[in-house]
């Protein structure tokens, strides 16, 4: 932080408690905010480039390695896209197993973020380990919840980070009824612990602020959306099917970031828990819906600071959904449906914990990938994050640098930015700056 000729500069060189690498630069000149830059300096890893020439069976394993915190999101969006290209629909119990697996990832990722990354901001700690000195019981509850999420990933996926059991068409081996039934007692505990989590975070001091851009998410049909085919926005202005994604969302490459910035043709937008909730809250399972109401959430939630409450509500929903699906489970006769390659284009989208994740592949008649596009949530949110930051800085110019910097970091963490994810996409329509 430097003060020079009436210019005040806030710099956070390495953001903590985000997954990946980012920095923040804010310049205030003569009491006026002049620039806000969220700088993503995560080195590019070029997934979309080296996916070309790979087999259509490989994206679930390869794209999982984009993010260790949400590998299942990458596996699901890629499977859906490849299956779409090959004209296959995976449904019934195989789809239910994918759904349970995804519930495990939501629980693991959301709980990590709520307890270890974000709550310390609201309560004034450097991290969960420092927080545990004063709130050990609460941190232990979070760790046990996270472990349960990981347990679901291990039983269905083979391991928690980069599950090995996911394939195009389904799985290599499906669990037995009793393997899943063994998870039920801990899931029942987790459902209650998640309800307690909602109550805990709803009591945090919430800065007053509402974002004014559109919110984009999958539009669920019968259930709160994890995987789906239609995309909607809270304003109602954007309504399209998944294959239309790249016709509506454009990405720009700016100098201060190795992540591209997303822009919707109808205006600025953000993805993530607020978008999912605002668009689909009527589809939440009963306990999650009641918990949201008790926490003071209404039909729409536009305060990004309250995303921590929505995440907690979604943990309740994930526990309820997993329990429902396990109760209805009967093992499918085959672990996967056959998927034969054919030349074509496929699109897939699912709700990663951080928001909408879109994949598109072109494959040839031998099943070799000729083009790949991946649009992760954090890149879509980068512009909204910068907007929020500008607002927060302008509204709090009277705070000292240290407090203001902490508030800025909290603002960034509202989006649980996964910076590792956002550093690679391509094949977009680019608007030059």
């Amino acid at each position, binding site marked *: 932080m430097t003060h020079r000729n009436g210019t005040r500069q806030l710099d956070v060189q390495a953001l903590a408690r985000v997954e990946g690498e980012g920095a923040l630069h804010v310049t205030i000149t003569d009491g006026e905010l002049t620039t806000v830059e969220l700088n993503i300096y995560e080195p590019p890893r070029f997934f979309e480039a080296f996916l070309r020439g790979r087999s259509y069976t490989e994206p679930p394993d390869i794209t999982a390695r984009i*993010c260790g915190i949400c590998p299942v999101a990458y596996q699901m969006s890629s499977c859906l896209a490849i299956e779409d290209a090959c004209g296959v629909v995976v449904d019934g119990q195989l789809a239910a197993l994918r759904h349970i697996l995804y519930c495990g990832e939501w629980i693991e990722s959301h709980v990590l973020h709520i307890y270890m990354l974000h709550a310390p901001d609201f309560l004034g700690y450097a991290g969960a380990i*420092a927080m545990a000195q004063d709130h050990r019981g609460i941190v232990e509850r979070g760790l046990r919840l996270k472990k349960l999420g990981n347990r679901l990933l291990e039983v269905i996926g*083979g391991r928690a980070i980069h599950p090995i059991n996911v394939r195009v068409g389904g799985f290599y081996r499906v669990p037995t009824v009793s393997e899943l039934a063994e998870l039920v007692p801990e899931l029942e505990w987790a459902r209650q612990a998640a309800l307690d989590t909602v109550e805990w975070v709803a009591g945090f001091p919430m800065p007053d602020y509402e974002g004014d851009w559109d919110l984009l998410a999958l539009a669920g049909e019968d259930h709160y959306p994890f995987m789906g085919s239609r995309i909607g926005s809270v304003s109602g202005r954007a309504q399209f099917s998944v294959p239309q994604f790249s016709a509506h969302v454009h990405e720009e490459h700016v100098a201060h970031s190795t992540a591209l910035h997303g822009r919707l043709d109808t205006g600025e937008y953000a993805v993530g828990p607020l978008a999912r909730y605002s668009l689909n809250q009527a589809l939440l399972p009963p306990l999650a819906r009641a918990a949201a109401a008790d926490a003071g959430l209404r039909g729409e939630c536009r305060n990004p600071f309250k995303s921590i409450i929505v995440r907690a509500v979604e943990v309740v929903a994930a526990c309820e959904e997993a329990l429902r699906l396990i109760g209805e489970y009967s093992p499918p006769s085959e672990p996967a449906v056959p998927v034969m390659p054919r030349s074509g284009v496929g699109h897939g989208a699912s709700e990663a914990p951080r928001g909408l994740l879109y994949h598109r592949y072109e494959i040839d008649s031998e099943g070799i990938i000729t083009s790949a596009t991946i649009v992760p949530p954090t890149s879509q949110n980068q512009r909204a994050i910068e907007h929020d930051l500008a607002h927060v800085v302008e509204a709090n110019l009277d705070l000292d640098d240290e407090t203001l910097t902490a508030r800025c970091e909290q603002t960034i963490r509202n989006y649980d930015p996964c910076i590792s994810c956002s550093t690679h996409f391509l094949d977009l329509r680019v608007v030059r700056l």
Partner: protein
Amino acid sequence: MTAAVPKVAVWKFASCDGCQLSLLDCEDELLAVAGAVELAHFLEASSATVAGPYDLSIVEGSVSTASDIERIAHIREESNVLISIGACATAGGIQALRNFADVGEYVSVVYARPDYIETLSTSTPISDHVAVDYELRGCPVNKSQLLHVISSFLLGRRPRLPSSSVCVECKARGTTCVMVAHGTACLGPVTHAGCGAICPAFDRGCYGCYGPADTVSTTAFVQLLRSLPVSDRAIERVFRTFNANAPGFRDIPGSEHAAVGSPRATS
């Protein structure tokens, strides 16, 4: 090293964060570990950082930019013991596929403004740049092995982990061999032990995410794979994943594309 409580730092280079997440996934041990050491730098977990020197540095990720080279040299100077964890840090990771290609073309495919991107033409392991005291394999690492390695160094001992193959772990676990029983191509015989042979237990062939085993010949094994109904291209692809740049995997016999070059900035 005067501190009574050891100072531990966790560093990230090009990676997916999965290996350092393994540490946070030690739900049962995390608070105990955090009580026994001073976590002096672990940005994924805490915004509080303490300046070096460090008793133990844990490094995730590969070296892929010019500034990475300087940063790892500095970390080495500040660290008494330095261990690298995961396929990215020990072999260059999946992002080392650029080592077999033209990185300039990669940049132009992914980015609208290649002039904004600064990257090396290669992704390389930490040990190509500084001395490393221990390398823990896996994509991702096995969290129990990670705890074992950390506690060994903190107690001043050498970690003791098997250097055999996944095949040996499969036998120990009593899994029927997927190659013998179903003719499924499996890299278990040439892949480093450590995962506990997860894939064959799920009716899947090992795809080598722990990298090459220390003492086996990939050449003989590739001949064996060729006897299965698997194309040469598919064989090449399975070695060209998360440990593509590891010696033993990178020069697969019969492959047209060998790894190239040493680090070179492209912009």
